[in-house]
């Protein structure tokens, strides 16, 4: 067939050529116009360096502005996190800046119930007066600690500062208790330092990279993916442990399609093999660690054969991969992951990852974890904060999680519902840039808390679901329209970056710093914001630090002199743990009545006909924050339900048809397309998080795809970090009813 198609074209074109020659006119006429190389004209008349906020990695950008409009955004070659390259999201800032659904004016809920979305457009004066008045009332009547700030994103720094000045330490982010919290706690307990963000991983120089549920390439943190590709290019071996054949699994020499919930068994078995066969870094372990004897005894019976029964990974494959992991030490990196709130024993699993890394001596080593450095910038001199110490009411059930070093967002919800935790409830929420209705599990609990509040302030760029529940909505301008504070990101080389406005704010939106300062002025806290605007504050701080302001504004970044970040560079390792060593055996946990070595816990499994609900990322979106971005959505418009193809066939479900997920508590999702695929185990389903918006203001995203948060009605609270394991919900897959699918 293909041949005849080509044949047809050949005849066709010859025919036209003859016709053209025949008239003599056409050829001459066409020939008059020379062939020019068309320039699409997207180069800016100005190029402004700044840094990105489409996710939280803070990559350096060069924004092209032509006739006052941002035409394109490129990576800043001088910035160590972008190195001139961007992830897909970074290219799409225009889609946020020019989103027609942006919040344009301050909104006030005058009548109607919270959540009715009966807003009235008001002046900034009115909105700020209202907010400050309410905050002062709570401060006076209930105490300042009865106000909490939920914050996600770099601009939140001004509101944290405001809240501390106001007198509350209840600053929280779902990015802790619902994401990286257990990892940070696990590493803090083991090494005396968190992994941080950006993660302090020398992926580029690793010879073996082991990923547990961490899907690099779909989880598109720019520098990490750059380094991952660089490592692969240099021949690094990838071991991908994932129930799903992820993009990273596609790059792996070993894909271990593990049964979800059993990763700790695999980690313990790997340790067993590495210790049993004497493959660990004896010198490193002797020099830097404590508790090896106890660890050895702990894993003595954690044989590969034992782990096989838990994980479904064949024993010989466990042995082989253990040897590969140890064989490349110390340039063998067991990736600590980022979103680690899975099953409720997540700190213990993160501890196991930390311990395994210690056995292969990768902490503080080239190709492992580096010890970051950053450039100091003097703070703006302000009075000391008057905040009270945070109370235990931020923790569910009034139980202290001794190792949770940040306030837990779901705990704040509980502490807002009268009687739930005993203490007097929290009265006011300020929500900055985080859509709590997609970020927090157990939505009914969140909504109950919201209805009990005296005040809910939403500061956002887009009308995410949470905005609809606010009393007052303060429209912030995008990262491309504002100054923010200086970013002294700890990294393998010290650098400073500034975010500076590329274009002026659209509509009546205002920068976060301005909103925070205006509120401070109205609450007699003006002395905490002793500057006219964030631009002059940034300049003053840089000048005080002895930095070249003109250079950093011109380049967007200032790079410092690299210092040793691994022992190979000459760094001497120190550990901020009580023993000053890497604590394989944790006396801190023992003292707190917690297992000092990671125990294996068998988790409930899905019943007949049920699948474990797993969720993750697409490279094009930062969960629900970007799914209304029409530019990014040009390539990824909605999510799909990944279901094993064989299972789908058995159930008569066809690839592409619309299905609904129903969880163990009867919670139903909206319909989404089924992806019947070989790329997933038969006992779980996978969806990309951040779809299925219901906010009427998100005109593009509303109704696209499926919202997994609806199905996370059950959580498993981590007894160490207090974080919420969320991969503990089981769903059935139903064909969407004809009516529901709109067919």
């Amino acid at each position: 067939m293909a041949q005849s198609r080509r044949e047809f074209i050949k005849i066709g074109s010859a025919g036209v050529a003859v016709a053209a020659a025949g008239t003599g006119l056409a050829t001459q006429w066409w020939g008059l116009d020379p062939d020019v190389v068309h320039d699409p004209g997207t180069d800016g008349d100005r190029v402004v360096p700044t840094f990105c906020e489409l996710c939280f990695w803070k990559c350096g950008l060069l924004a092209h502005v032509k006739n006052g409009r941002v035409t394109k955004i490129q990576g800043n070659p001088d910035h160590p996190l972008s190195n001139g390259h961007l992830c897909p999201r970074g290219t799409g800032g225009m889609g946020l800046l020019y989103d027609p659904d942006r919040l344009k004016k301050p909104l006030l809920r005058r009548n109607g119930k919270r959540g009715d979305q009966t807003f009235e457009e008001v002046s900034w004066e009115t909105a700020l007066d209202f907010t400050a008045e309410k905050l002062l009332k709570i401060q006076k009547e209930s105490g300042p600690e009865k106000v909490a700030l939920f914050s996600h994103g770099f601009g939140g720094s001004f509101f944290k500062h405001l809240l501390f000045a106001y007198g509350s330490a209840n600053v929280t982010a779902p990015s802790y208790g619902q994401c990286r919290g257990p990892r940070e706690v696990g590493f803090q307990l083991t090494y005396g330092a968190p992994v941080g963000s950006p993660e302090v991983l020398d992926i580029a120089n690793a010879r073996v990279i082991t990923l547990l549920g961490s899907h690099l390439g779909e989880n598109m943190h720019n520098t990490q993916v750059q380094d991952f590709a660089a490592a692969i290019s240099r021949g690094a071996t990838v071991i991908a442990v994932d129930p799903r054949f992820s993009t990273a699994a596609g790059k792996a020499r070993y894909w271990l399609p593990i049964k979800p919930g059993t990763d700790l068994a695999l980690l313990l078995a790997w340790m067993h093999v590495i210790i049993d066969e004497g493959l660990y870094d004896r010198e490193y372990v002797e020099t830097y660690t404590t508790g090896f004897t106890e660890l050895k005894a702990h894993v003595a019976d954690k044989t590969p054969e034992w782990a096989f029964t838990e994980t479904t990974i064949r024993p010989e494959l466990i042995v082989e991969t253990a040897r590969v992991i140890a064989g490349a030490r110390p340039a063998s990196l067991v990736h600590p992951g980022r979103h680690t709130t899975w099953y409720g024993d997540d700190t213990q699993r993160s501890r196991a990852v930390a311990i395994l890394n210690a056995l292969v001596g990768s902490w503080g080593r080239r190709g492992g974890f580096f010890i970051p450095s950053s450039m100091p910038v003097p703070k703006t001199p302000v009075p000391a904060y008057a905040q009270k110490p945070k109370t235990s009411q931020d923790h569910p059930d009034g139980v202290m999680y001794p190792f949770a070093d940040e306030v837990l967002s779901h705990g704040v919800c509980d502490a807002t519902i009268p009687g739930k935790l005993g203490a007097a409830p929290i009265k006011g929420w300020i929500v900055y840039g985080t859509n709590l209705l997609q970020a927090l599990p157990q939505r009914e609990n969140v909504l109950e808390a919201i209805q009990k509040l005296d005040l809910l302030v939403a500061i956002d760029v887009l009308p995410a679901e949470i905005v609809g529940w606010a009393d007052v909505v303060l429209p912030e301008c995008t990262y491309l329209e504002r100054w923010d504070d200086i970013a002294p990101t700890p990294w393998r080389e010290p650098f400073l970056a500034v975010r500076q406005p590329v274009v002026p704010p659209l509509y009546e939106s205002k920068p976060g710093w301005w909103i925070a300062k205006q509120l401070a002025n109205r609450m007699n806290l003006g002395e905490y914001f002793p500057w006219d605007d964030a631009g002059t504050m940034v300049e003053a701080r840089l000048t005080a630090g002895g930095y070249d302001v003109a250079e950093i504004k011109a380049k967007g970044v200032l790079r410092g002199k690299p210092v040793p970040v691994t022992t190979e560079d000459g760094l001497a390792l120190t550990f901020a743990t009580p023993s000053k060593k890497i604590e394989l055996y944790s006396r801190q946990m023992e003292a707190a009545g917690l297992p000092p070595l990671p125990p294996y816990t068998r988790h409930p499994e899905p019943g007949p006909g049920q699948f474990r609900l797993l969720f993750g990322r697409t490279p094009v979106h930062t969960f629900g924050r970007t799914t209304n971005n029409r530019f990014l959505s040009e390539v990824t418009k909605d999510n799909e339900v990944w279901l094993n193809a064989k299972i789908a066939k058995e159930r008569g479900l066809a690839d592409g048809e619309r299905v609904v997920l129903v969880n163990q508590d009867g919670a139903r999702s909206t319909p989404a397309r089924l992806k019947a695929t070989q790329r997933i185990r038969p006992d779980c389903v996978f969806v990309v998080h951040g779809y299925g918006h219901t906010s009427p203001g998100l005109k593009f995203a509303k109704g696209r795809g499926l919202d997994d948060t609806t199905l996370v009605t059950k959580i498993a609270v981590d007894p160490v970090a207090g974080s919420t394991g969320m991969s503990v919900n089981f769903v059935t897959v139903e064909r969407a009813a004809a009516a529901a699918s709109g067919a």
Partner: protein
Amino acid sequence: MSVPKKRYAMTVDTRLCVGCKACVLSCKAENDVPDGFCRDWVVEDVRGEFPLLAAEIRSERCNHCTDAPCVKSCPTGASHVNEGGVVLVSHNKCSGCKACIAACPYDARFVHPKGYVDKCTFCLHRVQKGLKPGCVTVCPTGTLAFGDIHDPDSEVSKNLRTRRWKVNHPESGAQPNLYFLL
């Protein structure tokens, strides 16, 4: 000794590509590609059955064929070979007849809402300024390389000398210039 003419080509390292589509979006911004269209795209080729699977991810676009069927089929001369063998469409000469779209073995062309046929230009407007194409510049994984395959020192020449590679639809005889490194 005669200096060989430039022959621009691109290599796509399938080992490195994660299919993130930064190339697609960066191209759309650079070239002001209208909504609903793209000049490059990503193919995820997954083979096998659970759990024995293999994946190949390819960032694809116009192959700027040396013996380009689109150029041969174009009745108006709009589709033509420009500097370095780059196949371009002169907007003002294109009648939108779609003969080239039918002729292209790679489905790389579309009709721009303004009426002319559009496709990847290897960002020749950037290349002429000494820059790399937009997709190559943005790519966070270093999957894409662009250059002159007649220059033995170019990255693409080195890639083709040192790596195994393939092209899509070699049977078309069009002599494509988009090489996939394996």
